């Protein structure tokens, strides 16, 4: 416990006069939450409330979150999109950067925002199994004293959107990765949620609505509204903190201009509709109308194309509102004829970062398949990701010289050198859209193919080198059958996971991990890794040193959980033996038929006649006997 008191002090001591924003998050279950008004369920909240409070931090400050786990499963908190400046053990990704906080213990997450140079819209969420799906997620906003567009808006709101399940994530995961679900149909959300926040607190429901008591302080969906004043311009920060569904977002009667995506300020670009995949964020400027005669609908429609089916009893479309005057009526325009996808390749960052020619190209082809255990899993380059026994960061810290061995981290790992320029060519063999997120970096979107195996350059264009300022972000959606080339400079030592942010897909293995500059990690970690990290591993019986499997070896991975693997089809040994057995018994059967009929013991015609006669006689005798009896009586 000493570290809990010491760490803020350390943070204060380090770089000059930076402040520390300190939060105490007690992760708890909250019973009977009913945000969509359809179903009461247990959720995972913070300090007994749900949703967890939005985090808003000045870029002058560093953030320190004391996360105490008061639920009955492992918990972590991941600050999505943060660089952590070589301290990737603060990243909060279970199995990569830590073992998971055991129930009753506390992890102090230090997020060095003041030194990361980051600004904009991010979010924080649990990253252990799927606990964020049950509610542990909140907006994380980094406010700079000199915002790029600071002069262009009068006020800002944060719009949180997410799909919503009525069952808890562990049950859903169990049904998802199950022999009864060989097609890998993801759990279909029961509804969707939209709610608003401003200055670190959620906006209350519309007066007069009757929200469920547990979440009565927050307005959801049709009970949520943004108060607009005529003529003013607002910055809306839109976050998809869902588990599965992408959203299409637009506002009736108002134009939007994108100014930020995933914390990258960009040149203003008008847009009718935003497509926001899971974990993506956008900021848009919206100028209020000059008349208050009507209130206007805000639309957040789930992208149902990824759903196995859309049950008739779910409404995938949420309508909230902008209120100019409580006395005005709500205008909901007729539904849009088609959805448009936001082309993030066309966005232009304000801070210019030209593309540097790559030193390494890593091709990652992924798809889904029913595996040899009958369950459906994702695989990248034919390997299903399983969290290693020892989190990768601890392997890197403990393996010494062997830490540079890629094999040591498991077959889903890539060791990259400091300063390497990595091109990730991510090929989507599936039909759905997958939002991939790289921890610890922003990636430049270098190229996109709508059909990666096509020879048609319009579908599969060649990569153009020398791009002056490609768009960069931390979560990139890859369309079905398409590919994306993502470039990043390996300048952030640490163990970083690259995964599909659809929670179900991460659980089914759609991930790889990068270990950037293992020897530099060791160097920079000297005396900086908190002891509770190791203590918490020991508390749950997880080794804290050695390779992925916990052995002090570069190559011995015995005991490492791997698989499942592809099914082996065709004539395997057991099939051949079985077929041989079938043929053999058939031959024996046929020979028996021959033996019965034609081999020995033939009954002659006379014998047959005799036998038949005997039978008839026997019958007749019986009949006569009865007949005699009848006659006598």
């Amino acid at each position, binding site marked *: 416990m000493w570290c809990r008191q010491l760490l803020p002090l350390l943070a204060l001591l380090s770089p000059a006069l930076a402040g520390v924003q300190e939060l105490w998050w007690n992760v708890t279950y909250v019973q009977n939450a009913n945000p969509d008004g359809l179903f009461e369920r247990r959720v995972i909240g913070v300090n007994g409330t749900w949703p967890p409070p939005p985090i808003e931090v000045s870029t002058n400050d560093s953030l320190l979150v004391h996360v105490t786990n008061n639920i009955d499963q492992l918990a972590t908190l991941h600050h999505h999109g943060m660089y952590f400046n070589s301290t990737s053990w603060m990243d909060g990704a279970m199995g990569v950067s830590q073992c998971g906080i055991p129930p009753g213990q506390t992890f102090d997450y230090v997020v060095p925002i003041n030194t990361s140079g980051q600004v904009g819209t991010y979010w924080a969420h649990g990253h252990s199994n799927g606990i964020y799906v049950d509610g542990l997620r909140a907006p994380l906003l980094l406010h700079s004293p000199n915002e790029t567009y600071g002069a262009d808006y009068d006020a800002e709101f944060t719009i949180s959107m997410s799909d919503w399940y009525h069952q808890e994530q562990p049950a859903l995961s169990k049904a998802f990765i199950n022999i009864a679900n060989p097609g890998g149909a993801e759990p279909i959300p029961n509804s969707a949620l939209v709610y608003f926040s401003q200055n670190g607190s959620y906006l209350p429901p519309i007066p007069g609505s009757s929200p469920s008591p547990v979440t009565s302080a927050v307005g959801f969906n049709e009970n949520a509204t943004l108060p607009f004043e005529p003529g003013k311009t607002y910055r809306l920060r839109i976050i998809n903190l869902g588990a599965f569904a992408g959203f299409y977002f637009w506002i009736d009667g108002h134009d939007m201009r994108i100014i930020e995506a995933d914390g990258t300020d960009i040149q203003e670009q008008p847009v009718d509709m935003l497509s926001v995949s899971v974990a993506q964020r956008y900021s848009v400027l919206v100028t209020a109308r000059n008349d208050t005669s009507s209130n206007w609908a805000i639309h957040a429609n789930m992208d149902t194309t990824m759903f196995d089916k859309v049950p008739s009893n779910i409404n995938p479309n949420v309508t909230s509102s902008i209120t100019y005057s409580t006395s005005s009526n709500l205008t909901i325009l007729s539904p849009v004829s088609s959805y448009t996808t936001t082309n993030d390749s066309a966005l232009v960052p304000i801070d210019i970062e030209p593309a540097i020619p790559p030193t390494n190209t890593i091709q990652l082809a992924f798809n889904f398949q029913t595996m040899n255990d009958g369950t459906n899993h994702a695989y990248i380059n034919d390997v299903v990701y399983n969290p290693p026994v020892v989190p990768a960061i601890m392997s890197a810290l403990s393996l010494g010289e062997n830490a540079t061995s890629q094999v040591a981290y498991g077959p889903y790992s890539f060791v990259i050198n400091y300063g390497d320029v990595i091109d990730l060519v991510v090929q989507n063999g599936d039909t759905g859209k997958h939002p991939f997120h790289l921890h610890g970096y922003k990636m430049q979107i270098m190229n996109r193919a709508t059909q990666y195996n096509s020879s048609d350059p319009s579908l599969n264009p060649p990569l153009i080198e020398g791009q002056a300022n490609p768009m960069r972000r931390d979560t990139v959606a890859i369309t079905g059958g398409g590919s994306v080339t993502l470039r990043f400079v390996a300048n952030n030592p640490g163990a970083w996971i690259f995964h599909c942010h659809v929670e179900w897909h991460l659980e089914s293995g759609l991930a790889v991990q990068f270990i950037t500059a293992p020897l530099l990690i060791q160097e920079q970690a000297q005396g900086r890794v908190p002891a509770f990290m190791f203590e918490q591993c020991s508390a749950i019986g997880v080794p804290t040193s050695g390779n992925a499997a916990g052995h002090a070896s570069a190559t011995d991975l015995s005991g490492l959980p791997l698989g499942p693997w592809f099914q082996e089809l065709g004539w395997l040994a*057991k099939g051949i033996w079985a077929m041989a057995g079938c043929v053999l*018994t058939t031959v024996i059967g046929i020979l028996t038929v021959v033996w019965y009929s*034609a081999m020995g013991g033939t009954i002659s015609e006379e014998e047959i006649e005799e036998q038949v006669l005997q039978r008839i006689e026997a019958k007749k005798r019986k009949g006569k006997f009865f007949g005699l009896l009848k006659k006598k009586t």
Partner: protein
Amino acid sequence: MAAQNLFSVSIFFIVFRESLEAVIIVSVLLGLVEQIVHGDTEQFSAPQITEQYQPANNNGEITTPGEEESDATIKRRLIRKLRMQVFAGAGIGLLVSFALGAAFIAVWFTKASDLWLKAENLWEGIFELIASLMIFVMGITMLKLDRAKAKWRVKLQRAFSEQHVDSGVRTGKWVLFILPMITVLREGIEAVVFVGGVALGQPAKSIPIAAIVGLACGLICGYFIYQFASRSTLTIFLIVMTNLILLIGAGLFSKAVWSFQENAFNDLLGADVDDSGGNGPGSYNVLGSVWHLDCCNPETDLSWGIFNAILGWTNSATQGSVLSYVFYWLMVVVALVRMKFKEGRTKLLWLESAAGTRRRLASEKQAEDTADEKGSHNLPLSATESPVISEALPTEITQ
């Protein structure tokens, strides 16, 4: 797919088999007609038969020597008339059983076919199980068909003579009409039951062509076998046919188990059932799978479908389907060994069945008798004392 739906192999074989037996009966009857008219009935020298055959003998006695030419014409006319009766009776029996079968199929496919739309695999499994068991019984008993001619000859002669005894001469006029009608009707109904049992799980369309082709083949084969072939040729023919039928039966039995397992798997998948089907990962249950080929699916591929109908082929074998196939053949082996043993035609190690003992004693006695015969030439004694009524013996006598 389409061909399978239009032609049911198992129905073909069932109809084929039943019509073959009907042909045997009719051919026996036709032979009987000639015997009756030509007065060969005397050959039945066994005391019981001769006794009961008196009216027929009387009929034969009408013909007096001297009117030989007109007698031959009368006989020919009589034979034709009686043959007509036999054919008419058989035809009507066939017609009635056809009508019964058609009615059954009509009722089944219009009233009951909705039953299995929902749990298709479950119903398919049940029907395949019924069919495979029926085929088992039929295939096994078919091997005795080479003894049917003799059996029916005695049976019909007996029935024929009893008609005279019991109901007087008047009914005797119709006996050659009624007997074939009843026997054909009996075989027909049997065929209807079998066809019905096998057809339960099959599309209605698959029945008529298979049944008609089976009937035609049965009639033709029956004709040829009894016109030109010996009993041993028939035995070979029956061995081939039985093996074919049992191959189908084993396939059906295996398919039944497979269908039950598929049904259980579909139940497990529940709403996800649309995702399954076809080949490859996800289309089948990996637990208990023995082989799975990403091709050659009998449900989607015509040629493999034929392979399935005849040999029970599946591209996705389970432990259940393989074991049940093996089990079916083992059942055949056990049943046949048991039957041959019970019939007294073989020993099992040192064991001998009751029939076996009887047969051994009989043949020993016969050997003794022939030895005696050679010594004493005591013909009447052997004819009366021997329980074996041989066809060869009377001819020997008449000669």
